[in-house]
């Protein structure tokens, strides 16, 4: 009898494997025939990827292009109009050095903008479930609909207590110094800030590029401005000032950084007549910027008021205001980040005052290496960690990847190519099983879960469950081939579990039951103790039902 019963069971299970292709989920199955996707295409964060996943930026990149345009246009004008004169009259090293500086600035800008800042991949379903279980164990389990209060782990780092928060989006406990960027929707290691000028977050992996970018940009703007002034002075010494102005086009659209230099020049203008030409040339040079303001003001309808203002002393005031902002923005930023690097703090920590002595008397920065030089060297010359998100990796069809969760995969299973359900199948199957479990049936959920599936050795329990559920989807619970094959008698339960386990191995192998899945454990244990008479007993049915629902809730929570 045992043998006779296994035959139809195995056949049904085999049919389940086959019928997967003819199920309504067939169109999902067809997605496997497309070219293999790369992981960046299903990355859950709000990022943009270019060059097939090699470059990574934030979603809003408009300001980045503005930065690029400002730098290139200013440098372009410098090279076009000033360098020929300077190269021939002073030294050809000027355009060379300028060119090198410009290339360095652009290189650092691209590197800061396109590098992965240190994004932490979201937790895999198994990992998230493990953490949830740990948190439930420590805090007591709560109802399925209740969101527990934010979990905090305390760690002592070099004598200082640090709180690690649980990130509900990424489902991980954030490592120290990691913060979740709301713009990019990622947890970033050693999160400094989200910089719209470089179009990316600034974190562990691109902080040095960002710092070198603002530092070299300061040098570049100082360089350009100094040599523009030199050019005008030299020309005026040779040919007279007015003709100097005529020869060199005074239409230099200045970057903010260039304008900062004006603030250095302006005070000197009061020193004497020798320098009197300088503020005039400066005013002439800044008229391009002013023209931009004119356009803006006209657009705003303030033209009349502004023209009167500018005719008067407005120009100098305007220039001072603009230059003050420019000084603060570029050189000030460089100085601020130099301070942060030397004390090994992030902008985030400095703004929050995490290690400030104002918070607590014995507060100190546990990450600092002690002296300024070591801190600087560690930040700038330390080892460059690799990207933790495998952007260009291929998505393996056999890995279960629920859409909102991580893009991680079971590394050790990447070599296996088995018939595996897709994400949609998993979700659909789960929903269907939950529906099935809530209907009072003789054969409740866990038995369904216990159905065999395609050979899935080494898979996570979720994946195995999904694939085993998938064939059952199109049919009603009571008419499921597996269930009907299981028979209406409990006598079949054990041989059926045997077959189920067998199917974890391979259809060809002789049925020898390997270990049961954790979800089926309550069921099989239960099953072993029931007899056909008890099967129809409402009490045992309820307990079966309860077990199945519990099992399924666990399934759905994973």
């Amino acid at each position, binding site marked *: 009898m045992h043998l006779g019963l296994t035959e139809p069971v195995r056949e049904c299970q085999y049919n389940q494997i086959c019928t997967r292709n003819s199920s309504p989920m067939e169109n999902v199955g067809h997605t496997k025939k497309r070219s293999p996707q790369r992981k960046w295409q299903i990355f859950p964060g709000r990022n943009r990827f270019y060059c097939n996943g090699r470059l990574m930026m934030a979603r809003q990149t408009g300001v980045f292009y503005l930065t690029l345009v400002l730098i290139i246009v200013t440098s372009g004008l410098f090279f076009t109009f000033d360098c020929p004169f300077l190269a021939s009259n002073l030294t050809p090293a000027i355009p060379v050095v300028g060119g090198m500086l410009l290339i360095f600035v652009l290189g650092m800008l691209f590197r800061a903008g396109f590098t992965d800042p240190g994004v932490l991949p979201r937790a895999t379903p198994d990992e998230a479930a493990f953490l949830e279980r740990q948190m439930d164990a420590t805090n007591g389990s709560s109802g399925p609909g209740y969101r527990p209060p934010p979990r905090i782990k305390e*760690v002592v*780092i070099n004598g200082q207590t640090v709180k690690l928060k649980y990130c509900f989006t990424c489902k991980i406990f954030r490592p*120290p110094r990691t913060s979740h960027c709301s713009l990019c929707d990622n947890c970033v290691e050693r999160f400094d800030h989200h910089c719209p000028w470089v179009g990316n977050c600034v974190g562990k992996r691109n902080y040095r590029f960002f710092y070198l970018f603002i530092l070299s940009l300061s040098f570049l703007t100082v360089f350009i401005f100094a040599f523009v002034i030199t050019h005008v002075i030299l020309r005026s010494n040779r040919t007279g000032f007015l003709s100097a102005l005529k020869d060199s086009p005074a239409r230099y659209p200045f970057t903010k950084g260039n304008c900062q230099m004006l603030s250095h020049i302006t005070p000197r203008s009061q020193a004497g007549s020798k320098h009197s030409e300088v503020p005039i040339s400066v005013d002439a040079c800044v008229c391009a910027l002013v023209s931009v303001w004119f356009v803006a003001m006209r657009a705003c309808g303030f033209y009349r008021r502004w023209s009167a203002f500018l005719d008067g002393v407005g120009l100098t005031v305007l220039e001072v205001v603009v230059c003050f902002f420019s000084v603060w923005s570029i050189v000030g930023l460089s100085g601020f980040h130099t301070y942060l690097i030397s004390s090994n703090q992030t902008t985030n920590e400095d703004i929050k005052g995490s290690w400030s002595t104002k918070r607590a008397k014995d507060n100190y920065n546990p990450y600092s290496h002690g002296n300024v030089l070591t801190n600087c060297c560690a930040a700038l*010359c330390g080892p460059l960690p690799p990207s933790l998100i495998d952007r260009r990796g291929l998505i393996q069809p056999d890995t279960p990847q629920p859409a909102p969760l991580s893009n991680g995969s079971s590394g050790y299973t990447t070599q296996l190519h088995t018939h595996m359900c897709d994400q949609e199948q998993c979700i659909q199957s789960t929903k269907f099983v939950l529906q099935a479990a809530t209907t009072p049936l003789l054969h409740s959920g866990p038995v369904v879960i216990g159905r065999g599936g395609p050979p899935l050795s080494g898979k996570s329990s979720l994946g195995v469950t999904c694939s085993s559920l998938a064939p059952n989807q199109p049919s009603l619970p009571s008419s499921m081939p597996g269930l009907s094959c299981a028979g209406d008698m409990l006598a079949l339960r054990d041989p059926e579990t045997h077959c189920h386990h067998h199917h974890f191995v391979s259809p060809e192998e002789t049925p020898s039951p390997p270990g*049961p899945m954790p979800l089926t454990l309550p069921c099989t244990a239960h099953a072993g103790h029931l007899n056909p008479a008890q099967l129809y007993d409402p009490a045992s049915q309820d307990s079966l039902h309860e077990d199945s629902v519990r099992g399924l809730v666990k399934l759905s929570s994973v």
Partner: protein
Amino acid sequence: MATEFHNLQELRHTASLATKVFIQRDYSQGTICRFQTKFPSELDSRIERNLFEDTIKTLNTYYVEAEKIGGQSYMEGCLACATAYTIFLCMETRYEKVLKKISAYIQEQNEKVYAPRGLLLTDPIERGMRVIEVSVFEDRGSSGSSLSSSGSSGGSAQR
């Protein structure tokens, strides 16, 4: 312990996954990559404590080597900066070299120590360096006996 798993391929194809144990990071020394050496209770019956702790300690040593700030890393950093980081198009960073060593070590440990015991370590880099994932497989030998006992008891209950 069943010794039927002679290699990793056999393990993957013949065993069923029972559970996964996650070894978390140890942040007591800062943000450097270091894993807790505390022996998880789920592995109590599967592997000897000292073997497991040795593996974790060796991995920690590798990570310390990768993140070491010293003469070599400074030279590499300065050279990279001088070449505007284009040098990394040609050569790989020290961190990447050590990561390759770590992958090879984990592979070797899996083959020699863990697969014969029905366990499998996953390289932490594949989990974002957050955890070491230890997959616990139910080997057919032990589980077969447990199932047959439940099967026989079930069968007897049916009769």
